[in-house]
């Protein structure tokens, strides 16, 4: 068990274009893929995460190379060619895998650094894994640790402030334009995490209707369902501007998708009702010239950050602090993993001692006559506590983190001292 590697395979928004990510995303929920992974005998523990920006699988196994191939074939076969997957997939092992998971959980690997939604998604993914009992001792510990790391990052740094600020600023500006947001209609262009977040925040302010416009209608419908809204295609975009008041754009498009002339053409139809555009896409989706139109207000992500006066520099500083926390926690988890290495020896030592204790008791107890059950129990208790006390120091010695002696040496010392290997081999004979 101690020699298992922790392996993390995945694609995210940094390595993979949206078009590929869409195909790799586990759109059918976690149950199916988790059940299919059960066929792979080489996997000990595993869990899956799929969001709009990433698909990741984390598992423990003895042979990472072999399992990488098998897992990828099983999950992604048929959707994308093997070469394409190989091009964009990243693989982290052991400490790196732990580090990566912590980065993801604390939202340092997110498209919008500091957004809080990822933690919820992570928890949900883990819940599926633990319900289906695909995660065990190591992954349970690791995932729980990642939640607490995320929490620590959030409380000890102001990394979340900028993400929160975007929604906050959007609401604040909306109020200055529309007076109140009650009864206003929102359109999301693109279905990114951040847009979802901002929409959620706006809904809390009494927004009446949500329209989701996306290149792939299926994704739009999925998101629209969440907000009880309607879905439209990107080609209906200009037409839809007649019916909405606030537009949040966050597509992954490389070029602008909406121009000044498009917006100018519908202002008459809107009877000049104000329009509020929020462009949180990088690169931008909306023509900056749109802001020149009367009764139209366009804010991109930097403008929004100006509203709450959190500048880049400060955000970067917070990110550095957050990274330091992640490093620290990764090291700590590494220690725990190392201590897992001595676990087999500890277990063997304990079983050996207990078996001695049991044999001796079995020999002695029948010879003592006239013992009532209570006295019998006391003797048993005494025997096992002697064993426990005797083993206490060897156990500490094993677990200790002494710089002068390395762990393997200590393990072999204990094993030869108590003749664990010989007793094992003699058992087998």
């Amino acid at each position, binding site marked *: 068990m101690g020699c298992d590697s922790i392996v993390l395979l995945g694609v995210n928004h940094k390595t993979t274009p949206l078009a590929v990510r869409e195909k790799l995303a586990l759109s059918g929920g976690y149950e199916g893929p988790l059940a299919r992974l059960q066929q792979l005998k080489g996997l000990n523990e595993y869990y899956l995460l799929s969001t709009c920006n990433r698909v990741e699988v984390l598992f423990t196994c003895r042979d990472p190379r072999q399992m990488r191939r098998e897992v990828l074939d099983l999950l992604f076969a048929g959707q994308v060619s093997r070469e394409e997957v190989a091009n964009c997939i990243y693989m982290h092992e052991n400490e790196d895998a732990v580090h990566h998971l912590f980065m993801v959980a604390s939202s340092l690997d997110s498209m919008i650094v500091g957004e809080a939604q990822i933690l919820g998604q992570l928890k949900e993914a883990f819940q599926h894994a633990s319900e289906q009992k695909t995660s065990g001792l190591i992954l349970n510990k690791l995932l729980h640790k990642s939640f607490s790391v995320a929490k620590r990052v959030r409380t000890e740094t102001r990394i979340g402030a900028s993400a929160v600020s975007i929604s906050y600023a959007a609401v604040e500006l909306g109020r200055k334009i529309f007076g109140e947001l009650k009864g206003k209609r929102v359109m999301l262009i693109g279905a990114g995490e951040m847009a979802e977040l901002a929409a959620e925040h706006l809904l809390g302010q009494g927004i009446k209707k949500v329209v989701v416009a996306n290149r792939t209608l299926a994704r739009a419908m999925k998101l629209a369902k969440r907000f009880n809204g309607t879905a439209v295609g990107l080609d209906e975009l200009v037409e839809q501007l007649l019916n909405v008041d606030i537009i949040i754009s966050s597509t992954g498009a490389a070029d602008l998708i909406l121009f000044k002339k498009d917006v100018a053409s519908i202002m008459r139809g809107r009877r000049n*009702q*104000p329009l509020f555009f929020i462009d949180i896409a990088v690169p931008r989706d909306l023509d900056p010239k749109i802001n020149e139109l009367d009764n139209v207000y366009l804010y991109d992500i930097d403008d929004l950050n100006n509203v709450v006066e959190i500048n880049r520099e400060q955000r970067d500083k917070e990110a550095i602090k957050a990274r330091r926390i992640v490093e620290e926690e990764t090291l700590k988890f590494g220690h725990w993993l190392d201590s897992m290495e001595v676990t087999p020896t500890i277990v063997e030592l304990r079983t050996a001692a207990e078996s001695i204790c049991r044999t001796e008791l079995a020999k002695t107890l029948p010879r003592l006559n006239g013992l009532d059950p209570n006295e019998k129990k006391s003797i048993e208790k005494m025997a096992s506590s002697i064993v426990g006390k005797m083993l206490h120091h060897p156990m500490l010695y094993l677990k200790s983190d002494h710089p002068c002696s390395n762990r393997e040496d200590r393990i072999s010392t204990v094993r030869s001292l108590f003749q664990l290997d010989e007793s094992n081999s003699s058992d087998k004979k």
Partner: protein
Amino acid sequence: MSFLLFQISFVAYFLATAAYIVFFITQKKHVRHIARTIFFTAAILHTANIIARYVEAGHTPITSIHETISFFAWSIAWCYLSFRWRYTVKNFGTFASIMVLVLMLIASLASREIMPLPPTMQSWLLPVHASIAIVADAFLALAAIGGGMYLLQERELKQKRFGYFFSRLPSLEALDKLNQHCISIGFPLMTLGMFTGYIWAKQIWGGRDWHWDPKIIWSMVTWFLYAGLMHQRFTLGWRGRRAALMTIIAFGAVLLTLWFQLKGVHNYGV
């Protein structure tokens, strides 16, 4: 008596404006409460002043420059208070009270002598025509103040540099509604004022040639400006910056008309 009341209400307006400015800077709610109370008191004192002057003069006190401007300030104060009842526009009181104070200052500088009314002015139409016209102007003045606030706020939002005014000014929507509200009351009143003026002029001049003096021309220009603005708003949905700008320009015309009124045909008294 009326003189004393004028002085007291002037001082009260001054204190109210000062309190409103303090509120504008500090944004402390209890200061606003104080400012409102003082402003309300000042408006009541001002009303007493106008009644006293009516009694002293024996005719409606909207004949001299002092009286007209004082009545204008009084109208603004009460128009503001009238719809403050119905809805609040953030920090509007500060701007309105400054405007009232400035008018009171001008009124206090003008001659306060009570002039005997010339025979042509002795008509039941004097209180009707003059008060309607000035109350109309008061609503248009409030619309212009709202327009100015709109332009300030819109500039902050467009340039995305949020300075001192951003948090202190109301939303664009509220200011635009204020504009619509004030103009849709002010414009009909203005029309009515002009109509009574027309009847009165007919009474005085009878069949004589129509006086095409600057006052009448400017009244017409002003009327057409507001008519155009109303028309555009209801047909094309003109709103926002353009409407605010038009409101301010049109109010410039109102002031010009008022100035001609005080200098020109109306000033029979001097």
